[in-house]
Each structure stands twice: as structure tokens, then as C-alpha cells.
């Protein structure tokens, strides 16, 4: 499984854009990049997944460069409710079945 590295924490103010970069230098050809969000006292929640280039949904955007050795999760105009831990995972969804391991994640704190 590709190992991921992401910052331990990031601080932001309300209304700003937050970009979290995840490094995954040994990503395999069949691997996808998936991000989860975890609020205190809750389980992680799937927010976005991508393979290459750019993916956007109602919550976030995911930017993946051509070499796929890193990816950036972008949260537009964050609010206080976006304070959470964000996890980057890399793996083959057709072969996952629980093999995906969550690292320590990035604690994002949004303040007024």
C-alpha cells in the first residue's frame, strides 16, 4: 500500500480556502486517492475520490498532478463547521476490503 504523508495540522479563518497536500510517492497504477473527514465523536466520512487531474463535488475539490505523487484537497470558503481531521488514503478500491489504513490525518481548525 502506498504510504501517505500529510501535515499534522492547519489553521484557517472563516471564509478562506484551505488546501491540504498529501504526498504519496509510491502510488501504484491502480491506486485511487481518497479523502475522508472526521468530526469529533463521529466516524470518518467519505468526501472525495479521484484518480487523476481534478475532481470536484459539493464539498471539496481534489487536484492530482500528472505524476500522481501528490494530491491536494481544497476546501473553498471554510466555515467553523469544517473544523475536523482530514485523512488522505491511497489504494486500489477493487482490492481494498479493509486494507486501507488511516494515518494520523490533518487537523484543520477554523476560527472566526
Amino acid at each position, binding site marked *: 500500500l502506498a504510504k501517505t504523508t500529510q501535515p499534522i495540522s492547519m489553521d484557517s479563518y472563516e471564509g478562506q480556502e484551505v488546501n491540504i497536500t498529501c504526498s504519496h510517492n509510491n502510488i501504484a497504477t491502480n491506486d485511487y486517492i481518497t479523502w*475522508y473527514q472526521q468530526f469529533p465523536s*463521529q*466516524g470518518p466520512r467519505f468526501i472525495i*475520490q479521484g484518480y487523476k487531474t481534478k475532481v470536484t463535488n459539493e464539498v471539496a475539490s481534489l487536484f492530482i498532478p500528472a505524476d500522481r505523487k501528490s494530491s491536494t484537497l481544497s476546501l473553498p470558503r471554510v466555515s467553523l463547521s469544517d473544523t475536523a481531521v482530514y485523512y488522505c488514503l491511497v489504494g486500489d*478500491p477493487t482490492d*481494498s476490503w*479493509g486494507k486501507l*489504513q*488511516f494515518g*494520523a490525518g490533518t487537523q484543520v481548525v477554523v476560527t472566526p
Partner: protein
Amino acid sequence: DTAVSQTPKYLVTQMGNDKSIKCEQNLGHDTMYWYKQDSKKFLKIMFSYNNKELIINETVPNRFSPKSPDKAHLNLHINSLELGDSAVYFCASSRGQGDNYGYTFGSGTRLTVV
């Protein structure tokens, strides 16, 4: 209508006791998991079941025994609880192999062993 529900949400017990955590999913998913989250927020896979069959059993002590009576339920029984078992345990489910939509997690069970 909760997709993945776990009970109880909090569990405080003494060392040496036996306890169970229940999990149910109403998503029609084929695969269910148990994860353990320690104080440093690392989430580690413990078990994975697909259609009631054990698929993954990571290096978990034999005191932990999962049971899946049907594909909508995956319970976790823990014997002879130890202080180090204190953590948050999450149940999750997914559509199984070929799932590009990720896992759906329950809200967790905070186990405290005293």
C-alpha cells in the same frame, strides 16, 4: 435513518470483564469492518467480513472475536479486557470489491477499561 449504527456509544468496564459491541448497517452493503482508533487518532483495521465470511484478520489478540450473523450485522466481542484496549472502535461498511464510493462509518464506541 442511521446507515451504520453501533451500540453502545460509551462503554466503561473493569479489567478482566467480557463485553460486546454491536453493529448494524441498513445500506445493503456486502462488506463490514471493525476499526480501532487510538488516542493519536490512528485508525487501524481489525477485521473485515464479506457476506458473513472473514476476509481480513489483522494482528489482533485472540481476545477479540467478531461475529457476523448476517451480512447486515457485525458484532465484536472482547474477552478479558485490558487497559490497552481502551480506544474508540468504529464499525464500517462498503459495497465490497470494486467499491469506488468509500466506506460508511458508524459513530463509534468509546471503550474505557479501568
